[in-house]
């Protein structure tokens, strides 16, 4: 299942922030991403002191925690999962530790509810030392384009 999810993600480099899914079921998902030192935003955030922007950590949490899980949930509802249309509708995040270039993070997301195409989750990101990097609650709308 996880390879099918990755194939259907509507992202590509340089804005794909999912490498692999470790685990996915109807209640949650766990996935990994390594922030390559070559990523473009490190040139400017910050000058001479590259640190992963919080907005990118949020995006990584959303891609793994909401989009990957959302695609899975649509799949188990029996719908075809090609061309998912998605939109982030809310996020409330707290950032606890910096993530430097080259670090690998794990995102764990727990479903609060998935109803009427809206998925709301509690997400947590951990670094390679298993320390909490950021956490929050986010929600998005996800549906399959049926008119194409």
């Amino acid at each position, binding site marked *: 299942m996880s390879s099918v999810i990755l194939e259907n993600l509507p992202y590509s480099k340089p804005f794909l922030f999912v490498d692999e899914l470790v685990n996915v079921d109807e209640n949650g998902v766990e996935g990994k991403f390594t922030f390559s030192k070559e990523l473009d935003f490190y040139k400017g955030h910050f000058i001479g002191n590259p640190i992963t922007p919080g907005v990118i950590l949020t995006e990584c949490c959303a891609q793994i925690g909401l989009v990957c899980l959302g695609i899975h949930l649509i799949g188990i509802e029996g719908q075809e999962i090609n061309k998912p249309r998605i*939109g982030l*509708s*809310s996020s409330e995040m707290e950032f606890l530790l910096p993530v430097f270039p080259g670090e690998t993070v794990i995102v764990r997301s727990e479903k609060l*509810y998935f*109803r*009427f*195409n*809206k998925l709301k989750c509690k997400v947590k990101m951990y670094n390679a030392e298993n320390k909490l990097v950021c956490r929050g609650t986010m929600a998005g*709308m996800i549906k399959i384009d049926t008119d194409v």
Partner: protein
Amino acid sequence: MGKEERYQKLRDIIKIYLPEDVSIDQISEESHFTEELNINSAHLVDIVLDVEDAFDITLENDDMDQMQTVKDALRIIDLKTDK
């Protein structure tokens, strides 16, 4: 619970999700949730979930599709609470 009481209860739920540029006074039975009250699809789901809790009912996908105006919502609530 009377009709007027249901309407007030629904208005109290809707007002939480109104954007800043829409006032409570603009809510009427004829109001269209997305086109007139500028409520987005994610907040429309929030309204439905709050309605379920407040009236102790369960809405299906079909109900959601039909719920375009405040009046639609009241009709669905009436139907479900009568059962």
